[in-house]
């Protein structure tokens, strides 16, 4: 049961013999086969852009695909498929095909809407699969009135035509289905045209013709030349700009190929304040910017707060909250040298992403690049499984230390000590490339929540002279305890203690124990005095460490002779554990954040889309059209009424092409209704002769 509509396609077939090239071309472009092929081809082509991330920096593609494929893909414009000439060409084909189809079918469809087919004959009506006949005594006028009522009640428009001694009521309903066809297909053309207006084709064209030069360098706007600027006009664009708090911008950046061009705006936009708020879970809850628009044509500047999902529309320009970042916060830091002779801490100050600072530490010169600063850092509270409680670790900043040879390490430090298992540590993450995870150094904080004691301790242990003094004191003490009186042995004992300390600092406590065990084993396990000696060395090491700790207390202004308690014990152990990690830390300095002036930047997206209303009109046409197409059914009914010798013959036939099953039911209901009306009007009905299809 094919239901190919009687449209232009069949009409064309008859004229095939004398067709010109143009009409063959039009025929091809408007053919259904091409249309369906195009729909499928566009669908398949669209997949590419979802699999291959679009509009990434060219560098990334180069790394990913290698130079060979990179070039081929670039030739094919695969990095911006949806603006690729070949993709647009297919779209253009669809638009042409739909237009031709529309142009060809619309006249027919409009005509058909008012064609009642009132020339049908009795015989042809009997050929419909849906038809039924009655014989009645009622006069034709009465039958006509009755049938008219039934048809009208069911929504049919009626055309009446006399056929000799017979009368035909030709009814039709749902002809707006044809409008649906027109709207649906027209909408495709409208939407594509609107989309074209809003695309960046013009920009591409200007770039291609050399009128516009893509800027790839990261330089201030003021230094970007006129050849990379687009003046404010009526054309569509979509670009972004970052504005720090208190700053202003009169341009946005449009990404193009592997760089950008600058789009000038006919107004300036100033960011007064940017805010981020968070949920208890640490997820961001709100991003919003207080902006001020000033323009020559404005008497009063416009002040408004924009937020995600709440853009500001000004004069056809839509301004969106799209991102955020640091706008050059000023950080006040203290640098703690971890190596070298001069361990005095000193203060540093710089702005994120703005200033690069030179550091001189332990004879090494380093460049400090402050890269990021955030005040809110949520972390799920560890320990309780399944708990979703989060805590704010407070501000953190990130920086790079670049050595003279250009290599750099990245660091992420938290401002406040973080509590882990009831102890407090300064966390400093380090990595040598962005691809790695940060590994965190845990520096124990002292009673004042400062790294000072740890640094003093480190200093006492790593400065040769002070360590020697400490070890001498420790050796003397230990010998006293053992009742050894030979003072001349002190330097030797102290040296062996220092050796162990050195091992501890370099390789950790485990290594020291291993070393001692080995020495006992070497002694064969028989010689008691050897074992005692080993234990003695270990005692000297520990006492040396404690001496150094007391030195550190003194250096931080604490009383070195005071009774040491449990908290000293804990700190001592944490400090000793952190020592070997200092070597792996890879920087001769630890930066502690002391204070900051926060200055955020808001990422704004600014767009102009003059085609938007065209597209929206297309949407309206599309939705209207589709619902008319699907849910209004174009139905026809004919009621043939003929007077003959013994009474009146009534014949009801109907047809619908789209929904034969549904229509069969509707036909039956209408036929039943006429049946009842006939019965009601004349009690006895003769020969209800039912012939029904389906």
């Amino acid at each position, binding site marked *: 049961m094919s239901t190919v509509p009687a449209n232009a396609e069949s009409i064309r077939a008859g004229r095939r013999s004398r067709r010109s090239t143009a009409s063959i071309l039009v025929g091809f472009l408007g053919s259904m086969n091409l249309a369906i092929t195009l*729909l499928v081809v566009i669908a398949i082509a669209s997949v590419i852009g979802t699999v291959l991330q679009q509009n990434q920096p060219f560098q990334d593609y180069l790394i990913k695909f290698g130079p060979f494929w990179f070039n081929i893909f670039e030739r094919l414009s695969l990095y911006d498929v*949806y603006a690729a000439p070949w993709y647009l060409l297919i779209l253009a084909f669809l638009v042409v095909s739909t237009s031709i189809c529309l142009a060809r079918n619309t006249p027919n469809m409009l005509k058909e809407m008012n064609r009642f087919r009132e020339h049908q004959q009795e015989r042809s009506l009997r050929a419909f699969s849906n038809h039924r006949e009655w014989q009645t005594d009622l006069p034709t006028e009465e039958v006509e009135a009755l049938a008219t009522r039934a048809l009208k009640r069911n929504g049919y428009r009626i055309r009446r035509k006399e056929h000799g001694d017979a009368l035909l009521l030709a009814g039709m309903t749902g002809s707006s289905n044809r409008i649906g066809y027109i709207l649906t297909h027209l909408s495709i053309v409208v939407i594509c045209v609107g989309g074209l207006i809003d695309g960046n084709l013009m920009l591409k064209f200007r770039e291609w013709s050399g009128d516009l030069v893509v800027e790839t360098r990261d330089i201030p706007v003021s230094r970007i030349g006129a050849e990379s600027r687009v003046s404010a006009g009526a054309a569509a664009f979509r670009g972004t700009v970052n504005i720090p708090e208190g700053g202003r911008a009169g341009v946005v950046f449009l990404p193009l190929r592997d760089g950008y061009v600058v789009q000038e705006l006919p107004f300036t936009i100033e960011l007064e304040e940017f805010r981020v708020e968070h949920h208890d879970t640490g997820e961001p809850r709100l991003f919003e910017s207080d902006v001020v628009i000033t323009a020559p044509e404005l008497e009063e500047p416009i002040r408004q707060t924009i937020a995600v999902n709440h853009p500001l529309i000004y004069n056809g320009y839509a301004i969106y909250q799209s991102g955020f970042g640091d706008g050059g916060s000023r950080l006040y830091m203290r640098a703690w040298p971890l190596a070298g002779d001069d361990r005095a801490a000193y203060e540093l100050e710089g702005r994120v992403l703005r200033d690069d600072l030179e550091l001189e530490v332990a004879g090494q010169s380093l460049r400090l690049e402050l890269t990021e600063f955030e005040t809110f850092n949520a972390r799920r509270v560890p320990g309780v499984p399944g708990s979703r409680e989060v805590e704010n670790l407070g501000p953190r900043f990130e920086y790079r230390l670049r050595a003279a040879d250009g290599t750099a390490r990245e660091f992420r430090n938290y401002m406040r000590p973080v509590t882990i298992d009831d102890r407090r540590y300064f966390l400093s993450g380090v990595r040598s490339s962005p691809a790695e995870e940060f590994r965190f150094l845990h520096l124990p904080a002292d009673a004042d929540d400062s790294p000072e004691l740890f640094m003093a301790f480190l200093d006492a242990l790593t400065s040769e002279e002070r360590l020697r003094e400490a070890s001498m004191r420790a050796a003397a003490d230990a010998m006293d305890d053992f009742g050894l009186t030979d003072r001349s042995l002190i330097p030797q004992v102290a040296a062996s203690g220092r050796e162990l300390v050195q091992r501890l600092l370099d390789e950790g406590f485990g290594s020291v124990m291993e070393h001692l065990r080995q020495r006992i084993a070497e002694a064969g396990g028989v010689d008691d005095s050897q074992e005692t000696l080993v234990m003695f060395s270990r005692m000297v090491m520990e006492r040396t460490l404690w001496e150094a700790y007391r030195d550190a207390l003194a250096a931080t202004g604490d009383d070195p002779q005071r009774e040491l308690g449990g908290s000293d014990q804990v700190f001592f152990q944490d400090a000793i554990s952190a020592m070997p990690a200092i070597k792996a830390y890879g920087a001769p300095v630890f930066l502690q954040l002391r204070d900051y002036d926060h200055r955020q930047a808001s990422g704004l997206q*600014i767009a102009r889309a003059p085609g938007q209303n065209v597209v929206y009109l297309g949407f309206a046409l599309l939705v209207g059209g589709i619902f008319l197409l699907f849910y209004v059914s174009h139905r026809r009914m004919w009621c043939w009424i003929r007077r003959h010798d013994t009474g009146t013959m009534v014949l009801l036939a109907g047809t619908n092409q789209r929904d034969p099953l549904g229509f069969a039911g509707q036909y039956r209901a209408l036929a039943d209704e006429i049946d009842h009306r006939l019965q009601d009007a004349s009690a006895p009905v003769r020969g209800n002769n039912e012939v029904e299809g389906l």
Partner: protein
Amino acid sequence: MSTPQETLATRFDERGFFRRLSWFDWSWAAAFLVGTVYASVHFAQWMDGYEQAILYLSWVMLVAVGWMWKPARAFSIVVALLTLFAVSRYPDLQAAQNDFFLNYLLSSQSAIMWICALFPAAMVVYFAGLIANSPFMGKLGSAFTWAASGAGFIGLLVRWWESYLISPDVGRIPVTNLYEVFVLFAMTTGLIYLYYEYRYRTRALGGFVGIIITASIGFLLWYHFDRQAHEIDPLIPALQSWWMKIHVPTNFVAYGAFAISAMIGVAYLVQARFSDAWKRRGLPSAEVMDDLMYKNVALGFAFFTVATILGAFWAADAWGGYWSWDPKETWSLITWLNYAAWLHLRFTKGWRGTPMAWWAVIGLFIVTFTFLGVNIFLSGLHSYGEL
């Protein structure tokens, strides 16, 4: 539920549509209007103008559906009463554990667990009814499907309430992450299926539709137990928009209809293979199934078109442009073009039967990729529901 034999009406009814509505139709609509007005006043603090409009629009939609599909009235009453009952027993989140009804039936977690039991049960019973040729089993299947869909509705509505109990600024409509939309999917698919079951008076297809619903239930359970996805997380700013309230549900009507068309496609292919055996068991004729398949593709296509357009409007508000070729958008376009081609082949080329059934099944894979695959495999602006 009764099955009015409208086409066999013994007496035609000369009154218009509105005149034919019963007092029950009117009082039902009035009762829900009262509820709607109450909600719009009582919760005014949480709603802006658009949301008020959406609320009243939902009432209009509900009434339209209920007047055309009578069983929807009783369904809506039961769902509304049970939801109100659940909410009345829910002063704080703790009640979910302490209150008997909430704990076993009506807290969103319990209701969703009921869905997970009832939908698979419905599938089994439907198939048993089909194979054993037992009308009773078929009816039981319908009953399960009604109950499961009701549980879905209640589960989501109560979850909505729960989100506000967590904290008013966490409160949001529960259609914002994969977990919630899977419930939505199962429920809308169930309801759309029930509509066609009622219209076409056949329960033979219930098992087939049950397959896809059960598959989604399987995913839901995995997601729940493996990923703890049932927790209610607050919304990121990009999703805080009233567009969400119309965009997502519209989409899921479309997904549901496409899923049903594919499952009818499966039934069609099964029957084409073993024609006599299945026909004797009561599967509808090839013609009817073909028609049903088309009806569902058409319904899906219409709603998908609307949903995509709503998505474009939303994108214009949130991302700065109505179309960004984001992977989700692009895959929506792909899905849409695919079904457009399907419709053209059917209507202008007159294709029917087996190839169209296969195509409907393939269409579901494309839909599934748009719905799930994009979130799993591709990155883009659609920031909800990462696995």
